[in-house]
């Protein structure tokens, strides 16, 4: 029985996979040779290919699906992985999901995974594309098994899963087992399963031929798959800056789709900066909604938007960490203090000549000497806490504080003098540290405990020589944005701080378009290794948006961020050159899913693996 079935699978594969999308009757084929899909020397016409049952003739996507150790998977699994050569045709409409073994006593795990299966099916339908009209009679049965009911997504979440695909003894039936501790692991399993699927043209003679009617398509799935998978790093992030230029909600959703496809799990949202404050705060409406800080009344994120995005992200295994950058990188949005009787909340806002007061225009820093500032911050924190899950870290920014700005404010200078402080570097550093601890105290009071993890950018305050006198290592996580050559991260690790790497000379996606910066191509992004040490949470690619808005966001972020995703998920010993074929396929996948990822090579190189090295 089993033998008979396998034969059927084999012959199905032969006739189904023999042609890529074809109109006028010609086709190329690919064959897997030592891990590479090799294009045939000549195209052949449909007519002559009919009846050929040579298993090695495949469409490109079918070939890539099972060729090499990891087929078309991105990022590649970290445990033992086998992907059999056999494939089976199926249609997304006849997949059944079994959630009975998802442990759920009413906490919502089953509901969560049911939503994930819907997203999974959407991805399959997109993959199958137009004319996905061939209905196969293969039953696909996907069994999800999870044990934990914990829906928390944080650095301790277990993201491991195993996946196997077996052809059952019953004819025309395939069983997929995805086993995970948590629903988030299971979600990753479904993502992997979606990458074990490819679109192929329908068999000939089935009404799909001819010049007038477009060729029909269906999906094939790899069979005899067995793999186990777990990420190397637990913080795999992308930072988006929505202040230099506003990003509409749909752009952020698109980005989250691509993050989910690449198994990234943190969207770090640099929501505000000195240029604009698009985040609407119900308790402090002047910041954004009253248009002091937003570019226009349309360019704001309402609390509903944020809540929506949080849920959108969670369903994709991604959490959102909010950054409210302070005390620097704050200006527009904070100008109303005096008119409201609160005094100056920020100083040197939009001051010119800007070079005297800040790193880039417009200038602006919060006024740490104004007690009303902390009342406003308290309200802002309350608004954030209302929306974000309990215990979620807050990124408090803390980069590029520019002392000449504070030094230019009579109010601040007088305040410091009255306390017998000087105006030297150390005095301003202390002022900054005092701001940080007061702001943190305010947050803690609102949260009700002092356990919220706080992330700060590396800065003067985080210099190894001084950091311990300002920042508690159990409380603060440092996001380093120094070059790969810098010893800062290692020094901070040695002092017991936890670190997130945003290696500036590889993972800064805005580089190459301003000043003397150099573009970091996907190979550089991929080849950047960070130490696997206790305390290293992971890494983040950063999309600063001075020169990016919705128009070119995708091309700047993708597919390069996917290259980082494999580095952080799998941290392979090998370099980018070994990942090329899978990476090109993943770029294609992102484009298929509606992300306008940049091209990284001529299509020729995608079709002729290994010929462009």
């Amino acid at each position, binding site marked *: 029985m089993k033998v008979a079935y396998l034969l059927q699978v084999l012959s199905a594969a032969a006739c189904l996979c023999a042609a890529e999308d074809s109109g006028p009757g010609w086709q190329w084929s690919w064959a897997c040779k030592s891990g590479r899909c090799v294009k045939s020397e000549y195209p052949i016409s449909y007519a002559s290919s009919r009846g050929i049952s040579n298993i090695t003739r495949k469409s490109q996507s079918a070939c890539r699906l099972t060729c090499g150790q990891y087929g078309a998977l991105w990022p590649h699994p970290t445990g033992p992985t086998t992907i059999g050569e056999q494939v089976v045709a199926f249609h997304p409409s006849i997949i059944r999901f079994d959630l009975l073994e998802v442990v759920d006593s009413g906490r919502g795990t089953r509901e969560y995974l049911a939503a994930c299966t819907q997203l999974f099916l959407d991805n399959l339908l997109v993959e199958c594309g137009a004319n996905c009209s061939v209905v196969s009679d293969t039953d696909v049965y996907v069994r999800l098994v999870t044990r934990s009911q914990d829906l928390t997504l944080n650095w301790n979440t277990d993201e491991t899963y195993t996946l196997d695909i077996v052809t059952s003894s019953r004819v025309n039936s395939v069983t997929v087992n995805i086993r995970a501790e948590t629903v988030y692991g299971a979600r990753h399993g479904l993502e992997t399963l979606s990458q074990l699927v490819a679109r192929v043209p329908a068999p000939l003679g089935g009404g799909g031929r001819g010049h007038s009617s477009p060729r029909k398509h269906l999906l094939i799935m790899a069979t005899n798959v067995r793999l186990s998978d777990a990420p190397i790093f637990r913080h795999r992030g992308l930072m988006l800056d929505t202040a230099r230029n506003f990003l509409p909600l749909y752009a952020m959703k698109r980005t989250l789709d691509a993050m989910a496809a690449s198994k990234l799990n943190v969207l770090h949202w640099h929501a505000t900066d000195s240029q604009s404050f698009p985040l609407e705060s119900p308790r402090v409406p002047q910041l954004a909604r009253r248009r002091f800080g937003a570019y226009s009344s349309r360019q704001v994120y309402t609390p509903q938007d944020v809540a929506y995005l949080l849920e959108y992200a969670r369903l994709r295994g991604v959490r959102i960490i909010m950054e409210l950058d302070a005390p620097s990188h704050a200006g527009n949005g904070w100008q109303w203090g005096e008119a409201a009787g609160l005094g100056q909340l920020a100083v040197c806002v939009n001051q010119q000549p800007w070079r005297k007061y800040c790193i880039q225009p417009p200038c602006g820093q919060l006024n740490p000497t104004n007690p009303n500032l902390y009342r406003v911050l308290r309200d802002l924190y309350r608004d954030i806490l209302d929306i974000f899950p309990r215990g979620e870290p807050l990124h408090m920014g803390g980069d590029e504080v520019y002392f000449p700005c504070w030094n230019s404010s009579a109010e601040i200078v007088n305040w410091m003098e009255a306390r017998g402080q000087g105006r030297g570097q150390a005095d301003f550093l202390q002022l900054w540290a005092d701001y940080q601890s007061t702001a943190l105290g305010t947050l803690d009071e609102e949260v009700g405990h002092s356990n919220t993890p706080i992330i700060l950018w590396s800065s003067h305050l985080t210099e190894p020589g001084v950091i311990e006198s300002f920042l508690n290592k159990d409380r603060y996580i440092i996001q380093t944005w120094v070059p790969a050559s810098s010893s800062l991260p290692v020094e901070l690790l040695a002092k017991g701080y936890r670190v997130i790497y945003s290696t500036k000379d590889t993972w800064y996606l805005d580089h*190459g378009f301003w000043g003397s910066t150099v573009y970091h191509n996907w190979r550089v992004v991929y080849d950047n290794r960070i130490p696997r040490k206790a305390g290293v949470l992971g890494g983040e690619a950063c999309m600063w948006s*001075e020169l990016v808005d919705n128009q070119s966001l995708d091309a700047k972020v993708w597919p390069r961020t996917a290259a980082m995703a494999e580095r952080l998920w799998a941290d392979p010993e090998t370099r980018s050159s070994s990942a090329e074929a899978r990476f090109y396929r993943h770029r294609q996948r992102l484009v298929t899913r509606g992300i306008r990822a*940049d091209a990284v*090579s001529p*299509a020729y190189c995608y079709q002729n693996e290994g010929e*462009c090295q």
Partner: protein
Amino acid sequence: MIVALLICYTKEFLPDFIIRMTLLLLLMVSFIATGNWAQERVWTWQCQEGRCVKQLLQRNETPQGLEACKLVCDIYSTLWPRPTGKVELGRVLVPINYNAITIIGISGEGRALSENVGQLFSTAADNFRNRLTTMFKKQEQRTSGGKSLQVQVTIHDSSTRTLTMESDESYELYISEADYSQVHCNIVSAQFFGANYGLETLSQLTTFDDAADNLVIMRDVNITDSPAFPFRALVLDTARNYFSVASIKRTIDGMAASKLNTFHWHLTDSHSFPFQSSTYPQLSQYGAYTPQQIYTPQDITSVVEYARARGVRVLPEFDAPAHVGEGWQWAGPNVTVCVNAQPWNKYCVEPPCGQLNPTNDTVYEILGGIYHDIFALFDSDMFHMGGDEVNFECWRSSLDIVNWMTSQGMGQTNDDYLQLWDMFQKKAYMKVVEANGGNEIPIVLWTSHLTAEGAIDKYLDNEIYIIQIWTTGRDAAIANLVNKGFRVIFSNYDALYFDCGFGAWVAEGNNWCSPYIGWHKVYMNNPYTLLTNLGVDVSPGTAARELVLGAEAALWTEQVDESSLDGRFWPRAAAMAERLWSNPDEGWQQAEYRMLAHRERLVQRGIQSEALEPQWCYQNEGSCPSQG
């Protein structure tokens, strides 16, 4: 909202309650008094010394929107490229009614336009209306308030439909208020091309003012305009990666918005052959990436006609004898040589390798068919034969070629191969003439060994050949070309190669011509200045000046496909457009605000242009760093 705010602050700051209450009440009163409660308008823009300054809206002040301010503030308004003749701008905006716009075209004698030109004109008028439509963010904004707009366009030449190097692209534009209910606009041009540009300029003098909630147009305008250079081009490579017809048309939209007039189509390369030849359909059957990724004759005709109605010439390139490979596999042995040879760096500059075999007669037979098909579809007044990066090692690796050369008494030196190449070029040119109905036609060639000093006099005729320069702008060979009387097109890679600055796709590091070229550099790339710096006198009236046809920005697409096409071209191509249309004496600084406005215009029209700075800088003109 104010109420909510009050509650929240009374809870928080009870001690200062009274003072704060008073201030908030004041604020509240000011909002009510200005009547802008509904729009929550806090800001207004005022034109001060040529820049729009963002200010808090005062009591009783009528707000001015940012776009409206930009339209009246700069001495060249938001016009891109800026006009070259008379520019009298009333700097007063009049509301117009979107639903009451009439556009009529008439001939020089005041009659209806001939069918030839009338058909083009009617498309141009539709395009004008469509551009206005994109200015509205919502359908409801198209209210019937405002004056009616009458546009009368006079086109003297009633027969010319095809843009050539001799075409007249100039126009005159007048806008005045006829009476209380009407605004009149007159556009006068010699040929259709000028009329089309006049309509573009007219749409650039119109905007939706979100403060007045109406479409507005500038009144009391008198503009005369014509281009500094006749050849203003982009080249798109559709062989390294394929581009859909829709994306090509979008590129042409951007060109028309910026008064660029030539779309140079690098149809094929060694990587793929998407051009569907009617004579030899095998070429694209073998050479297209997929059977869908081809350009059928219908596709090409639709692009050519689309471009024509936008004043754009489509200049086809069939690159040879190098940059061929995929698509020729069926033609038999020795038609092409070293196709897909490895290690590629021995035989070509990038994989896959491939060159035509100049000693094989089948080559010319097939070329003749291809040229024939191309000439049947395009009607450009020039043809591009490529001719770049011929690798002699590739030819040397072919026993067939070496034997043939020996039989002809030729040696194996580079000079011998140069002669072989020359033979190819002459024979191929004969086929081109044949395809062109026996008529000579100007040929564009890329700079190469064949155009180098010493070779060019021997091999190329300056009556026929136009040389497209792709070295740096400082290359002394450029002076030689002009001194030898060749017409030239500048695509100096250090300013006009828009693919630079990204990852190298065949090696470590970034691509060969990195870094990325910013718009400032593109803007400052003046062909006359480059030649002057090389010691060539190109002052007005010199013969040398006449030889400079213009410039062309290039997008080689090894690392670009449809996903990021727009961002690579735009808005940088627009920076070149102003250089070529207006050729201003001033630097990019005077163009900055207009450039930013034009970028927004392109986005509004559906072109996904790269961002040039934070939106804050757009809203606060003059407050951001100059990075040039």
